[in-house]
């Protein structure tokens, strides 16, 4: 694009005869409310991270003390270590499984058994995604109840009664079981998005590759994967941001415990805000989390841009 057309584009609206400035009134409610509900609180939260405050009484400015404490705080590092496992459960495993499930549903079930069977199966995989996360978490917590829960009953019925346990209360099993629950909640998301992307793929492309004697794996690599690359990248980006923000399942199922085995940054900051009234420290944790999310998003968006450019 030449410089000339660029400046012209900036000076004109897309509605002929209307200067861009005439559209400013339409933006006022949106920008004002964004400022009040998001921008001011976000900046305020950064400020609070440099203070000591119990939620009532005076706010005391203490410089970078919270931040120095944060970098030495083992629980803080532990919470990000757990975030890594949450990412495995929300991004990596569902994305990989979702790739196979969606391509098998599109490639085999839809073609050989009809689209009704395919969309019925898809709906079943998607069902947990529909439920409010809080409700889905409580349901799975109910399944993994200690003593008389359904999972323990299932083990007993299979003659594995010795394995019964307090799944979410045992430091050894709490994180893996939490991860399993998150996989159950998340799996439908990549399945639905990938299937929607796969409908775009030209069936002749598959046939052409098939005529060349390619097997299913080769078709998957050569046709399926490149075709849904945009969806794949978007799923990875949004699911990772979602994983870093995970709060509900942890709060409702384990409260970060036992000990610190399932603590995550989001729950840790909530705990500082409302349970121990260390508002300044809670603000530091949540600011750190925001910074991590923004850095990840920027880096990922740059990678995304490169991948999409290379594909064209």
């Amino acid at each position: 694009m030449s410089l000339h057309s660029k400046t012209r584009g900036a000076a004109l609206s897309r509605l002929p005869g209307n200067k861009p400035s005439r559209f400013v009134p339409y933006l006022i409610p949106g920008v004002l409310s964004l400022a009040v509900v998001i921008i001011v609180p976000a900046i305020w939260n950064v400020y609070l991270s440099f203070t000591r405050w119990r939620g009532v009484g005076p706010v005391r400015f203490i410089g970078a003390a919270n931040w120095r404490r944060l970098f030495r705080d083992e629980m803080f590092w532990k919470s990000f270590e757990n975030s890594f496992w949450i990412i495995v459960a929300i991004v990596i495993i569902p994305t990989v499984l979702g790739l196979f499930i969606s391509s098998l549903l599109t490639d085999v079930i839809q073609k050989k058994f009809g689209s009704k069977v395919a969309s019925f199966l898809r709906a079943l995989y998607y069902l947990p995604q529909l439920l409010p996360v809080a409700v889905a978490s409580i349901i799975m917590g109910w399944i993994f109840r200690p003593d008389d829960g359904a999972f323990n009953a299932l083990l007993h019925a299979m003659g594995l009664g010795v394995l019964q346990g307090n799944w979410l209360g045992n430091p050894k099993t709490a994180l893996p079981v939490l991860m399993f629950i998150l996989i159950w909640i998340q799996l439908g998301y990549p399945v639905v998005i990938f299937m929607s992307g796969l409908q775009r793929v030209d069936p002749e492309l598959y046939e052409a590759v098939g005529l060349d004697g390619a097997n299913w794996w080769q078709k998957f690599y050569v046709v399926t994967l490149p075709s849904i690359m945009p969806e794949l990248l978007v799923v990875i980006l949004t699911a990772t941001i979602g994983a870093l923000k995970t709060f509900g399942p942890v709060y409702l199922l384990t409260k970060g415990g036992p000990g610190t085995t399932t603590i995550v940054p989001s729950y840790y900051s909530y705990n500082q805000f409302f349970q121990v009234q260390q508002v300044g420290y809670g603000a530091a944790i949540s600011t750190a989390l925001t910074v991590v999310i923004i850095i990840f998003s920027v880096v990922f968006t740059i990678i995304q841009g490169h991948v999409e450019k290379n594909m064209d």
Partner: protein
Amino acid sequence: MSEVSIRAKMSSKKKAEEVPLKAKHIRSWGDWLVLVLLSVGAIVMLSPLVILTMNAFKTIGDYNASGPLTMPAHPTMSGIVSFWNTSHFPVKFVNSLLISLVVAVLGVMLSVLNSFALGIGKVKGNRWIVLMIMLANMMPQEALLYPLYTMFKRIGLYNSQLAIMIIFTVIQSAYGTYLLSAVYGTFPQAILEASTLDGANRWQTLLRVVLPISWPTISVLFVFFFVWTWNEYMIPMAFLMDDSVQTVPLALATLQGQHTMDATTLAAASLLSIIPTIIFFVIFQRKLNQGIVAGAVK
């Protein structure tokens, strides 16, 4: 979590190709194996909800005697009725419905106004504003929570549904603006020119031309805003203290917090809590499909 599905669905213009009948009938053993494997997977996904439903209609005696894996011996509605009454379920339902509807309506209105100014008006600095809105989308709610809590407490809106409505209208409209301003950025120039030639001013163009043509996208946004708000948990929990103002997910969480709660009551309460979601899905599915098929805007 399903934010992208809108984008993904809108980009898939083509519906599933009709499969020729011939190909359908040549099924190898491998095809059957895939069907079996995927069905087993689907059953595993569904099983927690099936087991939950079985136990929602049991008495606690029944549960203690034969465990969670059997059908109810003496089916009873008592667990469901008891949660309906003790949690004041109708109140919680109306609260959730009201909050989600208001947020969906206002959120869509804000998104449309913003996007009209940014995507069609090309207001000066529009790129910066879109960038700001993208950042707003990434914000974890914890990073806003305490300042919002303090602000709304000071103006007397703590424990008020109005606070929740305001907060989520803005949060959802940030996503809506991000999506819709890109859509309006590619709005057909010829249609805008025709509208001007017909003598329409900006407001008339928005109302009579832009809005009807982008209606499929807007209705999809509406549905998603509604469902996301219905599902919200953390901010409502921090803000809504009284029983009379709480939402459905909060009611269930309160019940689960009471550790003495027996297994069948919790199962019944969970089942009751997911019924509205299932109903909405059935209602909205059609609307969503319309949005996908029409996709007139992009």
